């Protein structure tokens, strides 16, 4: 039975799509059959970050509106087995999605034997975001260590608890996970960013992991590669930890303290 996971945040630009791409790729690397859906109709980005933008024939809206089958629209990732992408439409807007249509797509994916369906939510709390979270069994809330992002995440958690299918039908509540991205221990120490403990205390949900702020994320995104597939960088390690913790492994949190540059690094640059 497929688990539906929404990656959401409320605020824009905090790393939802980056997290969706890496999380989906990480789960697929573990052998699960994973589909990742871009709900940001009109502002599609996921296909760029996954590096499949030139292979989009049919998109999510086509499937929702019955113009293509789910099999026609799913794009198979070339690097990771069992990973499939359902791109958003760039030319339509969010009104093209309907609750029944989205439900049908998720049913089809379940019938196709997918283990995980990752829903990459658009920013905001309006229709697009609400559709992305409606069918969710679990939620990954992506937050930056700053006040406005935490506030918006708090808001979206309230919406998860009130407007999701599980909430409306009185089922078990959505399992909530926190991913703290763009974390910079130096700036936390300087008081320019909120500390991990403060964010976790306020949102009061389980911390899945902390992703350090790094140039590697941008570089990977620009080259169409989920950062988790980049070897030897801290952000990749962080996302691997996140996938492991999601699957039940108990790993200590990393990337929380200030990294002291060794003498060697000081002399020879990075």
């Amino acid at each position, binding site marked *: 039975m497929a688990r539906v996971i929404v990656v959401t945040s409320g605020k824009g630009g905090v790393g939802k799509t980056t997290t969706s791409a890496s999380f989906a790729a990480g789960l697929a690397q573990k052998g699960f059959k994973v589909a990742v859906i871009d709900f940001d109709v009109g502002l599609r980005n996921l296909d760029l970050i996954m590096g499949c933008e030139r292979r989009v024939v049919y998109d999510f809206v086509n499937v929702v509106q019955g113009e293509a089958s789910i099999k026609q629209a799913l794009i198979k990732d070339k690097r990771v087995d069992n990973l499939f992408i359902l791109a958003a439409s760039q030319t339509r807007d969010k009104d093209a999605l309907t609750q029944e249509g989205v439900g049908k797509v998720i049913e089809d994916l379940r019938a196709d034997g997918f283990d995980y369906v990752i829903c990459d939510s658009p920013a905001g*709390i309006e229709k697009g975001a609400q559709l992305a979270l409606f069918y969710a069994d679990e939620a990954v809330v992506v937050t930056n260590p700053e006040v406005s992002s935490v506030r918006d995440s*708090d*808001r979206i*958690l*309230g919406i998860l608890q009130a407007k999701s299918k599980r909430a409306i039908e009185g089922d078990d509540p959505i399992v909530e996970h926190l991913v703290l991205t763009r974390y910079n221990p130096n700036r936390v120490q300087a008081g320019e960013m909120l500390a991990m403990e403060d964010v976790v205390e*306020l949102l*009061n949900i389980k911390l899945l992991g902390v992703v350090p702020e790094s140039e590697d994320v941008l570089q990977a995104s620009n080259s169409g590669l989920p950062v988790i597939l980049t070897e030897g960088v801290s952000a990749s390690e962080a996302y691997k930890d996140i996938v492991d913790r999601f699957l039940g492994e108990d790993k200590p949190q990393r990337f929380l303290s200030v990294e002291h540059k060794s003498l060697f690094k000081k002399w020879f640059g990075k």
Partner: protein
Amino acid sequence: MSEVIALKGSVLSLSVLKVFSDDFAKVKAVLTNKVAQAPDFFKALPIVIEPEVSPLAPMFLAQLVELLHQQNMMPVGVRTADPQLIEQAEYAGLAVFEPVKVSAEKVDKADQADKSRAASSAASADTPDQGALMVKTAVRSGQQVYAKGRDLIVTAAINPGAEVVADGHIHVYGKAKGKIFAGSNGNRQARIFVQQLDAEMVCIAGLYQMAEDIKPEYKQGWVEICLQQDRLVFNLL
């Protein structure tokens, strides 16, 4: 030492004057005629006025009170739920009685387990048996909790941008960072109890104080907020 005064509750029987017309001339004619039939019976009789029509002209109540005095009766109060009439009655120095909803009261007594019925009668009678509204999960940004006609107990945090409202007292066993409104129906006796206060606003019966006006010493631990002479008073517990 002998007792000087004693304040006790007592059930008295009062005559109720129901008014079914908003035409004062007509009311005056009928009433005068009625009193003329048995002037002794009506002499110094305490009367509660219960208008069954609305709206009434602004001067209607005052004219009626004057007429009753002329007829040697004693108007003591008005039984109504109409806010305009209540205001006029208070201005005229008359007591205000709550209208009795017979059906609701019967239901309440006969079937106290039926919560939806009890809720519908909450407006007419105080229902202490209903208890406080319990909230056990964090109240998040954008969420609003309203405990209508009762107290509110929150055993988790109230996050920034959230609002908790109660007609009665509010107790918060957690960090309160949102807005807190106690006694929202105008109950000035309502109080707020908070384990750790860092609220954006606290308000009792419409009198409020913003975060920046709350002294830091009240943000350390258990604090009680009450209303004394139109001022919010903070007490460390």
